[in-house]
């Protein structure tokens, strides 16, 4: 008769492979990585505990400090992406002919591998590239700009690519949320004579609030952790001006084989991310429906 009962043992048999893999490749890296960041680990020799040496070196390092600064600047992408994505979602939620194709078009950058994005935008941003040509024709700029070769501009060019890649993804999130909203309230508001603008601010936005919060948190974390775009577009240059905190971790850990240094950098980023995530979750909770 025991088969009518759900046995705990069976549940864990089902769960075992997933938990094992999560433990090995999601939890272990975080814990073991944090430990290694306090050592002089190298694959070649024995490991010694070095205390805070790696962290001290980190905060005395210009490249890392530039990286931290750039990661904070990167947060500017968040409002643009979120406001853009909400507006776009409202727009493509209209039942217009061919709207499906527009939605698809906005999602294309999302499904494109970042290496291809890097090659394409590398060409676009080139001094003799199309972007400069178009902007010159539109009289937005007077001389061609070195989008990726000017150390004052490059980080913003990278941020634009990040925006370009994220817009469609968040749009679909908001679109899904919009379509799950009940339409009664909108209809009641129309009967009461509310115009589109009022309906958007008084009904749509408050009802989207949980989605806006979730997407904003994801967007903030993604911005703090941005590094792939840097890798495929500038590799940190020109003059180390486009290092982000995590790109520094990647660069040190992988390309310079200073693993503990890289891990220390990623640990600093992680602490920031976890802090922000918890702050946001706490902020979210009262309004969260169970």
């Amino acid at each position, binding site marked *: 008769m025991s088969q009518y009962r759900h046995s705990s043992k069976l549940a864990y048999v089902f769960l075992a492979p997933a938990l094992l893999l999560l433990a090995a490749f999601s939890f272990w890296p*975080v814990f073991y990585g944090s430990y290694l960041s306090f050592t002089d680990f190298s694959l070649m020799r024995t490991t010694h505990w070095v205390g805070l040496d790696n962290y001290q070196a980190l905060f005395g390092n210009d490249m890392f400090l530039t990286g931290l600064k750039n990661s904070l600047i990167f947060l500017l992408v968040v409002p643009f992406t979120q406001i853009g994505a909400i507006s776009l979602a409202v727009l493509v939620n209209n039942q217009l002919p061919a709207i499906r194709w527009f939605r698809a078009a906005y999602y294309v950058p999302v499904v494109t591998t970042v290496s291809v994005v890097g090659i394409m935008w590398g060409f676009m941003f080139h001094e003799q590239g199309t972007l400069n040509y178009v902007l010159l024709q539109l009289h937005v700029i007077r001389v061609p700009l070195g989008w990726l070769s000017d150390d004052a501009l490059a980080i913003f060019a990278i941020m634009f690519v990040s925006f370009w890649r994220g817009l469609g993804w968040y749009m679909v*999130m908001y679109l899904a949320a919009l379509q799950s909203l009940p339409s009664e309230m909108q209809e009641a508001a129309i009967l009461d004579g509310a115009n589109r603008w009022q309906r958007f601010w008084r009904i749509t936005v408050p009802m989207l609030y949980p989605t806006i919060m979730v997407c904003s948190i994801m967007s903030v974390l993604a911005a703090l952790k941005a590094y792939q775009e840097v890798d495929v577009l500038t590799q940190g240059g020109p003059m180390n001006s486009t290092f982000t905190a995590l790109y520094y971790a990647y660069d040190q850990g992988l390309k310079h084989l200073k693993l503990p240094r890289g891990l220390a950098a990623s640990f600093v980023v*992680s602490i920031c991310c976890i802090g922000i995530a918890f702050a946001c979750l706490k902020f979210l909770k009262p309004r969260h429906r169970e």
Partner: protein
Amino acid sequence: MKLAAKMNHHKILRIVSQYLVLGVIAVICIFPFWWTFVVAISTKGNMFEFPPTFWPQGVSLDNFIEVFRVIPILAFYKNSLLITVATVFGKLVICSLAAYPLSRMAFRGSKLILGIILATMILPSEVNFLVNFISMTKLGLVDTYTGVVLPNVVTAVSILLLKQAFDEVPEDLLDAARVDGATEWTIFYRIVLPLITPWLATVGILTAVEAWNEYIWPSIIIAKPEDFPLSAGVLYLRGTYGSSTRVIAAGTILTVAPILVAFLFTQRFFMRGMDGAVK
């Protein structure tokens, strides 16, 4: 005609302006692809032509043929396909196995387990590969596709999506099967799993795109460039063939084409995946 009569100027203006905005953003999203395509099939000119041409100048496949000559792109396709299929298969099996008890079995520690799985979403996973590389060295999985695939097989998002799918299956169905003497395994395999096929397809397609696009981890773990997947291999064009941007453009198009075609045919699954994520 009645409808046309009703349409006042205001409404027409609004629709036109909506399409205008939609069109401009669509151009910003699509243009880099179109331009790369134009350069790739042109017989002359290159990426840095000033003024650039937005329409092909002469049409030929020479640049594409050149890609096949310069890099082992067929091997890259094969490697990408292998990695993608293995990741999708592994994920569907392991994540649906994990999601089922979380949705359908009352067991000790279920809340804790769910919490642990959710925690991986907050954990900073971006540079896990730094330590995962050490693990793979110790496991002897460096330079194997098993090493490429294993860390990507389980994600919290997939488990949650599948858990939601299982949640929607009516309990009566399971009870009926239990009364008939079916074991939990039979119920899972024969009854519940077939019922959530659309969700399995959704998770499968989202995973396929991620696996196909992944480029940093495979390029770390795979030693020989000819064993690279396409997403990592395509960057070789930029290094070894810097002179002709038309060939690089052709390689880029060959890399994105499969995923774009697949996306156009499976659009609705992407929407459904998000739908689940929002709930």
